[in-house]
């Protein structure tokens, strides 16, 4: 089975990031070159503190890179844009809005009826029925993350950036959330770039896993995971990929 040829959605060339702190400059990203196809699911893994989140913030347009260029749909990126939404690890939902209010946050340009319909659709997709009028303080951690994903999807973005979105959740909730994310990805076919430090998460979800080195982060390796979904997480093929990735990250830790 050969995958269909897909357009390049995002292209990074020689991206570098240097932070100035107290007069000293710290290099966080170095010569990052990456092409992401339309509809692809990419996981970024690497040792903690290596600059995964910084890279995601650069891709999202929140941080302009010090050197190099970032283009999406062949246009240079100059800032954040509602066509690509970043989902944060935690505290990303607005505590002053209800579930409905949060999902509708990016929909103020739609008519009332359209907005209500879109909100209802994502409430159902994210299994938040019955909590429409609930404030985030009364939701569990998993529901808050589902809400954040719902708010992101509601504006119909081309790209979804997820910054360890399930990192603060317990392991069972994480498993369920991964399944839901795959379900959404398969039904709505968006480009997803997903930062994680969890090897299982990466092998279970990604088309390709980008392994970053410790700081300053460089791309150490890119692994293609050619297992069709749903992936059997105890098959020999899966475990071989997982071992391979662990080995690469092991190298990343000592490099």
């Amino acid at each position, binding site marked *: 089975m050969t995958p269909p040829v897909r357009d390049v959605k995002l292209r990074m060339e020689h991206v570098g990031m240097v932070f100035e702190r107290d007069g000293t400059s710290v290099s966080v990203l170095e010569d990052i070159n990456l092409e992401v196809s339309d509809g692809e699911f990419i996981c970024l893994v690497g040792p903690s503190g290596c600059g995964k989140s910084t890279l995601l913030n650069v891709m999202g347009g929140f941080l302009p890179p010090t050197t190099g260029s970032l283009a999406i749909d062949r246009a240079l990126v100059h800032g*954040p*844009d509602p066509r690509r939404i970043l989902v944060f690890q935690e*505290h*990303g939902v607005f505590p*002053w809005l209800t579930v409905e209010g949060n999902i509708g*946050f990016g929909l103020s340009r739609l008519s009332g009826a359209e907005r209500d319909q879109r909100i209802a659709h994502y409430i159902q997709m994210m299994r938040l029925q019955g909590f429409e009028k609930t404030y985030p*303080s009364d939701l569990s951690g998993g529901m808050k993350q589902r809400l954040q994903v719902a708010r992101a999807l509601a504006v119909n973005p081309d790209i979804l950036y997820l910054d360890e979105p399930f990192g603060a959740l317990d392991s069972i909730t994480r498993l369920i959330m991964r399944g839901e994310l795959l379900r959404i990805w398969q039904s709505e076919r968006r480009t997803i770039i997903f930062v994680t430090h969890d090897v299982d998460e990466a092998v279970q979800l990604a088309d390709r896993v980008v392994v970053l080195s410790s700081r300053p982060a460089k791309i150490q390796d890119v692994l293609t995971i050619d297992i069709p979904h749903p992936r059997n997480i105890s098959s020999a093929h899966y475990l071989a990929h997982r071992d391979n990735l662990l080995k690469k990250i092991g190298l990343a830790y000592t490099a």
Partner: protein
Amino acid sequence: MIWQAAVDRHPGQLLPGPWEVAGGIGDLFEHGLLLKYVVASLFRVTWGFLLAALIAIPLGLTIGWYRRAEMAFSPLVQIFRPISPLAWIPIAILWFAVGDLAAIFLIFVGCFFPLLLTAMSAVHNIPAVYLNVGRNFGLSTADFISRVLYPAVVPQLIIGSRITLGIAWLVVVAAEMIAVNSGLGFLIIDARNAGNRYDLVIAGMVMIGTIGLLLDLGMRSLERVKSFRWSYTED
């Protein structure tokens, strides 16, 4: 009861007893003074506080948002802030003469700096993630202010306002002792000067305490509004 017992042991020295004070409040009420003085004090507090809030909160939010503005204003604020509002009494009388305006000005001064600092720190404490989400969804500047900045600072502004309203209520009593001739502060100083009516002095104090409590309860009820009730420290 302890009050009554203490007064019984030292008649005529310590304080008027609770019954005398209750009688004093009754007297004031009969003469129509109680309501008049309470309204006069509340009127000054309301205007002084509202004017301060109207100017200090938007100004503080703006200064807090722009780091450079803050560096420029901060020394000025820190010089004015430790000056007790009561130190402004002579200036208030010089500028506005004895009357409502002078008292309102003093309350304004007393409320201005606490509210300014509250607004400045409220902007600082907005978690970066809310600002980033706001930027991500492509809001206009006006929408960004009304739908992200404003709701993100409201809980802290309510807490700051509650404390500041307490300050305003402290200042009004002192201001009325000197700068005007009505209100609960005036009642206390007048009752003492015009015949040592200590029952009326205590009556005034009881009224001040009661109204202060009611004001605080009113502000607290704002804190219980659902969309205000969250705080950054939860979960």
